[in-house]
């Protein structure tokens, strides 16, 4: 299981690089790499369909949108960050504290492995099984997500369209 630790370390390092990179384009590329690593974890967890969807939706659609906007806006010009070091330190301390508290709280517990799971079903993460559940039990939220997409579509077109006339502050 050396590979699991290797993949985990790779994921965490590339996630850190997303946050630390000066250049937004590097951040996006590291983020894409993080998503691929997470997809690797999905394969290890025997959730193949999730892996495919993760790559298609996150790395394929969402990240391309990010890259597209960054290139369209040409963001390299204003790369220096305007936050003071003190705020940065405070932010890092807050994030680190959350991590430390959580690990301290769960340090003692032992959730075990899935080795003795008598009900284990290797088809759990397969597309047939997931489709049965999604379209039977979770039909209503599935349909209502379309409303969300409708709002997002109308909103993005409305906000993104170039507007004639003067700005007013």
């Amino acid at each position, binding site marked *: 299981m050396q590979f699991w630790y290797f993949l985990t370390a790779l994921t965490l390092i590339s996630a850190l690089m997303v946050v630390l990179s000066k250049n937004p384009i590097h951040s996006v590329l590291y983020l894409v790499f993080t998503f691929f690593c997470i997809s690797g974890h999905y394969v290890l967890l025997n959730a193949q369909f999730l892996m495919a969807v993760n790559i298609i939706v996150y790395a394929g659609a969402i990240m391309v949108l990010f890259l597209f906007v960054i290139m369209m806006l040409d963001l390299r010009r204003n790369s220096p960050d305007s936050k003071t070091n003190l705020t940065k330190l405070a932010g890092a301390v807050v994030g680190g504290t959350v991590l430390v508290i*959580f690990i301290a*709280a*769960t340090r003692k*517990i*032992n*959730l*075990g492995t899935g080795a003795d799971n008598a009900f284990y079903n290797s088809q759990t993460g397969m597309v047939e099984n997931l489709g049965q559940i999604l379209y*039977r*039990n*979770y*039909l*209503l*939220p599935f349909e*209502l*997500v379309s*409303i*969300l997409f*409708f*709002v*997002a579509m*109308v*909103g993005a077109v*409305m*906000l993104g369209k170039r*507007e*004639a*006339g*003067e*700005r*007013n*502050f």
Partner: protein
Amino acid sequence: MNAIIALSLFGITNLFLGFLNNRKILLPATLLFVLIAFGLNLADWNHEYYWFHNMLKTNNLSINFTSIILVATALVVAISRGFGNDEEHTHPAEYYGILLFSVVGAIMMVTFQSLFMLFVGIEILSVAMYVLTGSDKRNLRSNEAALKYFLMGSFATGIMLFGIALVYGATGSFDINGIGNMVNQAKLQDIMLNPYGPILYGGIILIFVGLLFKISAAPFHFWTPDVYDGAPSIFTAFMSTVVKTAGVAATYRLLSISFPAVYGLWGNPLVYITCLTLFIGNITAVYQQSFKRMLAYSSISHAGYLLITVLAKTPTTNSSILFYSLAYSIATISAFAVLMVVSEAQSKSGKPDESFTALNGLATNNPFLAFVLTVSMLSLAGIPLTAGFFGKFFIFADAFSNVSSLFKTIAVVAILMSTVGIYYYFKPIIAAYLKKGDLEKIELSPIYKLTLIITTALTILLGIAPDLVKNIF
């Protein structure tokens, strides 16, 4: 449930009505749609239904919350004036359509039975509000408010999702009854025996951080004044009524159904959060120069009052929350209605003047508007003979009827803070009646005037005979 389906279809209809190039038809059509949804909502009265494999549950409580949301929406639509006559820069069909969609999200938040529905509902409501906040595209303040709201909102969503993931890990369920059953088994005393205890508690805390973000309770309120201030006034009115009611209802539903067994975990932190919310909301409101910003802080403090009764867990909690939400929504909408017309009449170089000084001398030429403003401010302050007085009265009564002495302390803090509230709610009244100004007579359209008459009459009526509505709840 029927209201959700109807409003989804009506929202799409509204977008198509935009092709007609007739801006006049949109306002009456939207108002009609909301009223139809109101009727459909009442059809399930006195029945308990589970819908679509336990995704939604409607009962009288959820129907009441839905009704309040729809009434507030109808009032907001009625004072929207069709978003003006600026053909080029406003898109009323889209605004009304998105408004109806966001109400779908709000109704999902008050009727959810599964965390799937809670999450999707919160997202529909939030994404719609991000768009509407930034809808005044050429105004930099509106842009900035949209960005701030969007970044903070999606941050809160991320926190809440991680909480949901942890709660799922600990209980193995997304159904709120299922979670409640599991939490009962994994009670606090068994924390040493149950390895999932810390995970469950971490999850509960993160979910509530996310929800408190949405209802802008104190340590997580910092986005509220900026967003409420920067958004177009009509959408601020919507946010501070519908979004707040839906958020409080969702919090209450989750706390009372899923997590009553671990009251010891969230009870005490929430008590401090409530006190802090009341304190910050009321004290900071005193220092505001802008009427709109003052209303934003006042909405933070009202979230505090609503949290008191969520915490107190008395048999009358349901009706207290409902009555308070109704009274608060009506009064806030009429305050925003007055603010909108006055600030536009006073606008300097295209920018509406939203400070208290804009109200100077309002009573001289516009006695009706001044009267509406006075009634709504008195109601928000909780002066007798207005609906707000009984709203606060029921909440304080709940707090005092709780055996724990902690609640008597909260009630005392809340009463002190509402006296502070009287000071800043009287500022606009003093400006309107005692200061001198040169505001001319403002012409109101018939539907606008009618809405103001309805809200004012309702505020006074509920202040004289609260039992009219209280008995229904």
